[in-house]
């Protein structure tokens, strides 16, 4: 361990010298790994956002029951209906959302666009019964509700949920593929640049061996070089992705206010941690591969 702690300054200076002597390839490496990691960062963020949305929407598995006109006009009928709906197995709660509340909810959802509602003379919404149910029981509950007397129709958000799930699943699959592609190409790029560095420093390596330097001492600057290059690429990617995501959030905040996006800070820091750790691991493994492939020659 002393070998490394007391030589830290030397190792960094060596890396600096190696990068300086081969500035073009090294810059190109940082740039290309940066681009690759940027794609990765965006896919990871998309995956994160979609699964967050799915989770939120799932937590709010919503069933709205719309009642027949006749029953609506009759207050006791409505409360009787609510009671019998509550009696269905799997229903946790049921309450009436009256016309005014329905109207106000839409005002909230539409935000700035709420003025369109002024175009209506009367309140266009009808009251309905809102249910909270056990997610596992959703199918039998729906089945019973649709066959109930006095129910006009039942609206549930399973379809939306299903679509969101599909998107999240697709992003997950794409994400895995991208992670694999990013991993492989980073390993190839880094192991290549390390091989190049080693062959540029062949004489120096030979001399160090003749002087009795341990192999780890000789290899360490190369490991460090690979690590610094991918971390550089990672930083580049995270900055770019942070910028892009912030921009997209700003764009989405206006027209799509009701999408439950995860908090920007949480998303960016999570993405940053994932990309940076991945870049560090890939840099380390890539340089190791480069070292091993040279040794085997």
């Amino acid at each position, binding site marked *: 361990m*002393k*070998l490394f702690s*007391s*030589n830290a300054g*030397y190792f960094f200076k060596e890396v600096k*010298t190696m990068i300086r*002597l081969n500035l073009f390839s090294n810059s190109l490496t940082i740039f290309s790994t940066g681009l690759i990691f940027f794609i990765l960062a965006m896919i990871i963020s998309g995956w994160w956002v979609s699964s967050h949305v799915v989770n939120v929407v799932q937590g709010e598995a919503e069933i709205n029951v719309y009642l027949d006109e006749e029953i609506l006009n009759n207050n006791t009928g409505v409360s009787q209906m609510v009671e019998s709906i509550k009696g269905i197995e799997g229903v946790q709660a049921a309450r009436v959302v009256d016309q005014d509340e329905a109207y106000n909810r839409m005002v909230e959802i539409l935000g700035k666009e709420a003025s369109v509602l002024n175009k209506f003379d009367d309140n266009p919404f009808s009251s309905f019964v809102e249910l909270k149910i056990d997610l596992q029981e959703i199918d039998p509950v729906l089945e019973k509700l649709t066959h109930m007397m006095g129910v006009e129709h039942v609206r549930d958000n399973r379809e939306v949920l299903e679509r969101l799930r599909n998107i999240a699943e697709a992003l997950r699959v794409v994400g895995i593929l991208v992670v694999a592609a990013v991993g492989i190409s980073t390993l190839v790029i880094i192991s290549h640049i390390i091989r190049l560095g080693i062959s540029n420093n062949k*004489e*120096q390596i*030979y*001399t*160090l*061996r*003749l*002087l*009795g*330097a*341990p*192999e780890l*001492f000789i290899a360490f600057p190369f490991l460090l070089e690979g690590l610094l290059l991918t971390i550089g690429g990672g930083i580049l990617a995270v900055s770019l992705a942070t910028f892009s995501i912030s921009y997209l959030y700003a764009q989405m905040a206006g027209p799509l206010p009701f999408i439950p996006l995860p908090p920007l800070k949480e998303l960016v820091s999570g993405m940053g941690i994932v990309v940076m750790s991945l870049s560090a691991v890939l840099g380390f493994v890539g340089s190791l591969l480069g070292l091993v492939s040279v040794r085997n020659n």
Partner: protein
Amino acid sequence: MIKAKGVSLRFPNGTIAINNIDLQVEPGDMVYVTGPSGSGKTSLLKLFMGIEYPTIGSLEVLGQQMDKGQTSRIRQLRTSIGPVFQEFKLIKGRTVAENVMLGMRFLDLSQDQLKENAHDALAKVGLEHKASSLVENLSWGESQRVAIARAVARKPLLILADEPTGNLDKDNAINILELFKSFIDQKTSVIITTHATHLIDAEKHCKLIQMNKGSLSWERLG
């Protein structure tokens, strides 16, 4: 310190660089190896450093058997050797001081000790003022002295110097030989190959080996 019995070195192309030699070097010995070009002087030093292995015979350096299967032990052994290569093998793009220190970075020395050793060694070869020059900007003689400083700064048990005075003027050459001699008092063995036999004549307490076509003869025992 060094024990060679019936050692031969035959290169893959058939050249016999060392031919059946016996040799014993004790701690504190100063040994000059001389002989015409191509007689096997460098090859002998290569055997002692484990750069080449004997094709026949047995060789022991600082208690280590020099066999092909012992590479990691031989790597370790090299930390006790101060080598001066015929072609210097300095590391380009680095300063004189860094080159000297690089030979010690993986030895168990503190940073202060490292700097002090490097500074002392450079002073002894008269190159303090070049400490921060890049090695590629040095003259041949200066490069040679940096190589010597790198070897002695390590305070090795065995110094193997291949033509260390080859590019030096007489004053510098004598200075370097004095520097090497200062080590034999500390029981370091010094083996020097040289063509400069006229300088050796001034030396009393030394052994002289004559190489000829890979064979060895003791010319004078000190």
